[in-house]
Each structure stands twice: as structure tokens, then as C-alpha cells.
């Protein structure tokens, strides 16, 4: 199953490239690009998730979270690595999150403008506890988005370089002066 999913991840670039040239009317599908075992998410929810992770970590001169498939990683992790009660809380939290979007912006998250999406996230950031499901959904998704991003091939080869074979260990070296990295 894991292998299938990895293959699915690799396929994803082709899939999204294909989607981009299709007329909008043909995109009405409720299928997701992954087969999930424990949670059920439709195609629109997946799209919403893609925009949410992108709002959390947007593309700048460097890739955003959507390009690095953080929304799919979020789905895989939620499906495989969370307890049942947390999965349910996350799913109902997703609906509550949409309701909060409608309430604040008058639109679903997908329909919202980038500025509206940002004001919704600002509201969630301001609320410190995650006792309600929407807050749980937001925080879990954000945590997984950060994990997806900082453990991605992009991040570990271009930003914070991971060495598979260091071939050295020095116990005490000067700490290099930190140069600010352009995000």
C-alpha cells in the first residue's frame, strides 16, 4: 500500500499538469487522487486542503506547500498515523472550518480570495486552544504541512541540506555565522 502511495505521489505532478489544461466544467469530480483507507475526503475537500496548505506556506520565489504535495502528505498521515477519534475530529473539523469561512467571508475557503483566506487563518491563529474541532483541524493540518515541507526533497536539498553520508564527525567546531535564507 505504501508503495502504491509513493507511486501516486510521483504521479501527482503529471496529474495536476493534466488538470490544468482541462476545461473547468470537466473538473467536476468528487474523487481524490489518493485511495484512503480510514478517512473519506472528496475531490473538492482535497482542493480546499491544497489551498489551505498553500495559504499556510505560500509559493514565493521558492515553492509553496501545494507544489510540494503537502496536502496529500496531510491526507496520508491523517489516514495512517492518527487515532480514529482524531481522524473523526479532523473530518468534522474540516466541515466546521468551512462553516467558519462562510461565516467570516461569505464564501467557502476555495471561493475565498487570498486576502479572505488569510483573514480566516489569522482568526484561527488568534484562538490559542484547539478544543473545538475546527481549531483541531487547522492545527493538525498546519503541523503536517510544516512536516511535509521541512522534510521534503526540496527543503532537504536546497534549504537545510540533509547529508545521507556525512563521512565525518567533528565534536567541536566554530558555529558558522548565520546567513539569513531567503524564503
Amino acid at each position, binding site marked *: 500500500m505504501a508503495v502504491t502511495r509513493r507511486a501516486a505521489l510521483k504521479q501527482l505532478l503529471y496529474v495536476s499538469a493534466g488538470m490544468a489544461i482541462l476545461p473547468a466544467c470537466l473538473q467536476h469530480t468528487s474523487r481524490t487522487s489518493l485511495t484512503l483507507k480510514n478517512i473519506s475526503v472528496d475531490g473538492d475537500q482535497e482542493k480546499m486542503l491544497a489551498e489551505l496548505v498553500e495559504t499556510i506556506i505560500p509559493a514565493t520565489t521558492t515553492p509553496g506547500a501545494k507544489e510540494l504535495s503537502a496536502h496529500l502528505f496531510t491526507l496520508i498521515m491523517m489516514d495512517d498515523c492518527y487515532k480514529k477519534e482524531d481522524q473523526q475530529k479532523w473530518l468534522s473539523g474540516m466541515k466546521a472550518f468551512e462553516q467558519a469561512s462562510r461565516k467570516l467571508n461569505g464564501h467557502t475557503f476555495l471561493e475565498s480570495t487570498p486576502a479572505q483566506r488569510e483573514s480566516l487563518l489569522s482568526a484561527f*491563529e488568534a484562538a490559542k486552544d484547539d478544543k473545538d474541532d475546527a481549531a483541531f483541524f487547522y492545527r493538525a493540518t498546519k503541523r503536517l504541512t510544516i512536516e511535509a515541507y521541512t522534510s521534503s526533497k526540496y527543503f532537504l536539498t536546497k534549504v537545510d541540506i540533509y547529508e545521507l553520508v556525512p563521512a565525518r564527525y567533528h*565534536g567541536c567546531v566554530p558555529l558558522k555565522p548565520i546567513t539569513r535564507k531567503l524564503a
Partner: protein
Amino acid sequence: MSKDNTSLQNRTFDAIVIGSGISGGWAAKEFTEKGLKTLVLERGRDVKHLKDYPTTSQFPWEFPHRGQVPEAIQTANPVISRCYAYKEDAMHFFVKDTDHPYGQPKPFDWIRGYQVGGKSLMWARQTQRWSDFDFEGPARDGFATDWPIRYKDIAPWYSYVEKFVGISGNKDGLPNLPDGEFLPPLELSCVENYFKDFVKDNYKDRHVIYARCAHLTQPQQIHLDQGRGQCQKRDLCQRGCPFGGYFSSNSSTIPWAEKTGNLTLRPFSVVHSIIYDEQKGKATGVRVVDTNTKEMMEYYAKVIFVNAAAVNTNAVLLNSTSHRFPNGLGNDSGVLGKYFAFHNYRGHISGQYDGFKDSTTDGRSPTSAYLPRFRNVHKQETDFLRGYAAGFSTGRGSHTNTNGFGKTLKDQLFNSETGPWYVGSHMMGETIPKEISTVTLDTQKKDEWGIPQININVGYDDNDEKMLKDFFEQMTEMFTKAGFTNIHTGDSKQAPGLDIHEMGGVRMGNDPKTSMLNKWNQMHACNNVFVTDGACMTSTSTQNPSLTYMALTARAVDYAVQQLKKGEI
């Protein structure tokens, strides 16, 4: 498949070794080098060096769950999921709880690796010698039974195995942790060196040293001959090393034995029992269940080494009943399966150090610093028996601010801040083997091959609790005096077994009335059966035990072959 089951000749060897882990691998190497046709029986699958390390060169992003074990597997397998090394990159080398159930009258986290190489593939590679302060422990302090050997008996064999294994270490000159045959050490960190000097200056009998470990820091010809190369400081050892940088049966002893042409390695072979011949008064072979065909077959040899790992070695012997030995092979004394013990790993302590702000480490170290036992070494001085060693490790932490979202968050993720030095230590406490601490066979339940289920019944005692308290007190004092701050102690309350240092049940001793094995690891009551894995241990001391198993094994094979030649066995 049945080819080797048809002919008696094809099923007869000079020596049979049960198990291919760290001690079985050594038995295989020694027997085959001495020209004996040797059958090694392994209950699990084969794992070939390099070829069968599927994750060894994977980058973090190539793991679908970034290392995490999926929830469903954790829920179904709570015991193995508690093991520090049971992660997505190495989980294929561990036994799931659901695959091989066992009984736990008291909680016991039994961590198993059923494959060629056993747990030598995923071990923590720490290799500290014992001293006479350890071997004389039971006699001095009046517990268990006296060891039938002393340091001088095993010292040359430590040297013998160390040269082949390749041990990185410093000559520290400590009587309680004798020096060995060392390859150069890696560096300690600035803070480890600082703490080392601090302890030396402030405590007469306490030392912080570089922990000796089975890594090729500077391979010698004997290591190159094994096809092994220099440790590349990947610190991903649990996946199997593509460089052969650390020692395992798979990278070292098993292929070495294969090269002699004298080795027959038979994976998928669970040993049911050892066959005892009442007329000859000897063991003549073993009964094996092929785990693929479920067929039972017999193999024969002049000498049998039991290296199934501590618990399973007890079980094989307990299940080897005969008219002569109704309570298990060699069990005239009734001590078989008793005096089982482990290491107390419950205590840990952490803190930070605000010095060396301008320094850090570079690369990855596969080892750390180590404090040999300093309690009750020369004489009894506390309200508990024995003592503990402690690991000591340090590093520079990093902190990432994850507040906010958008460009602000992204900028923070790209620019994590270097934190202070963290310091941490964990205890490795000696536990007292007791008669009530047992490995037994279930009278009702059987596994899928008709072999009785194993029950493990061992717990902590008052001595362990006092020792834990002392670890907290002493380490807190040392950390505080050394200027470490933000100190936190923690009791993991983990069950015995999670230390993965289970020992005993088939103990060595001078007296056949109170022990199973003599000073050569040879059964008192059945002289062509030897036990040289963790089951043979009379007491546990504080050192990681694998090096001692390897030395005892090489020594016992040498003796067994001499006895064979003399016609004594």
C-alpha cells in the same frame, strides 16, 4: 526442499549452532575456521549483507510517513512499538507482537529480531569489557551464584574478538572498565569534554569516557578482508550499513564462515528441541520445524551450541525433555529458566549548558560518552547492591518558530535558530537475578509449530527502585555542579525487556547443583551442549553484554574443539 531431509548423511554435521545473531555468528565463524562442518539454524529469513537492506540509502522524504510507524501497526503491536529503533526505516527487522505471542505474568517488553543476523543488525553497538569488579560481584555481595570465571580467563578472548570486530575506543586505564584492542576513537563534543574534565577534577572515582563501540574508525587488513570499510558516520546503523562500518553477523562472521566452505546456513528453521540419546548420554542433534513446510526434521552433530538469544535458548532447553531430563535438558539442578534478569534503563536526565555558544558539532556520531559504574565498586557503600553505568550525550539543539502562517511562517522555517547545548544521560543499572524471575513454558498454549508458548515472569524490585533514586540524585548533583541548567529527571517506568539486555536462566557456575553450565559454557550434565548467548549469564553487571557473549563464544568453541579432538565429547 526435502533433499536435505532424505539422506542421513546430508543431515549430519560436526557442529550445530542454533541461532545466527551476535553469538551464533561467532560460533559459526570459529567452528568453520577450525574445519568443522557446521550447520547454523535460523528461525527467520535470510538477510544478506547489502542486498537485503532495502532502506539503507533512502532519504527522509522517501519514507511515506517520514519514519513514523502507522497507527494501526502500533495499536496491534504495543510492545515492539515501544522500542526506540522500531521506526519506518527498520521495522522490517523486528518481530511484531502479533506474529509471535508470549505470556507476560508481569509486563515484559520482549524485543526480537527473527532473521539471519538477529539483533546484531539493529544493536546499539556499545562494547564495554567487564572487569573483576563485575565477575566477583555475586560472590562478594551474596546473590545469584559465583561466576566460574574471572577477568583473566576472558581477557585474551576479549582481545581476540575485538580485533576482528573492530572496536573504536580510548585507552582510559580504568580498573573497572579494562582497556581493549582499540581502533581510534571519534571525538567527544566540547561539552562532553568539558563534563569529562569537570568530573575528573571533582570526583575521585568517577570518569566520563568515550563509549567504546563496534565501528571501524580506521579499518585494518582483517576488516578489509571481511569486505568491510570505514564508518561513514551516517548514524543510520539500524537499517544495515552499506559500508559494513559497524559489526553485525551479516557483514562479518556469517560471510566469513561461508568463505570457509564449511558452513550450511538454514533459515526458516525453528528448533523444537535438542535430541538426547539416553544410551550415549549425549545430545545427538536437534529437531527442527521448517516454517515454510511445517515439516519436522532432525539434524545431527557431535556438538551443539545454543545461541537462540536468552529467552529462546531457555525455551529450547526447557522443551528438550527426555527420560533422563524430564525438566529440560541438563536441568538436574532445577535452576533452568530461573535467575532471569535484565538491565534497569528506567532513569534519564536532561538539561542544557549555556557555555560554548560559539561551537557546535559537525557530521553525526554513532556513539556518545559513557560513565562506567562508580557506585559500590570497591566496597558496599549504599543502601542498594551494585550500581549503574550511564550514557552521556550532548548536542546543539535548534529551534523553529512555528507561529503564524504565510510568508512570516515560511521565513521562520527557512531560518531556524540554533539553540543551547542540550545534555542528557540514561542509566544502565545492574539487576539482581532471582530464583522467582523466570522463563517458563506454557502448559496449554502452543505456537503454530506446536511448540509451547513462552511465559516471561520478571519484575523490578526494591533494589532497582533505590538505584533509580540514586541515579537521579547523583546525576542531578553532577549536572548541577557542572553548571548545567533546566535539569529534568524522568522515570520511563518501562517494563523490563525494553533494555534489550535480558540475561540468565541457563547460568554458569562452579556447582552442578546450582548452575547449568561450567566455566567453559558447557552443560554440567550433557557435555556436548554449550550455551554462550545471554542465557549463560550468572549476573548482569552494567555493561552492554554483547561483547562478553562474543568473547565467551569464541572461548567455548576453542575448548569444545579441543575436547572433540581429545575424544572427550
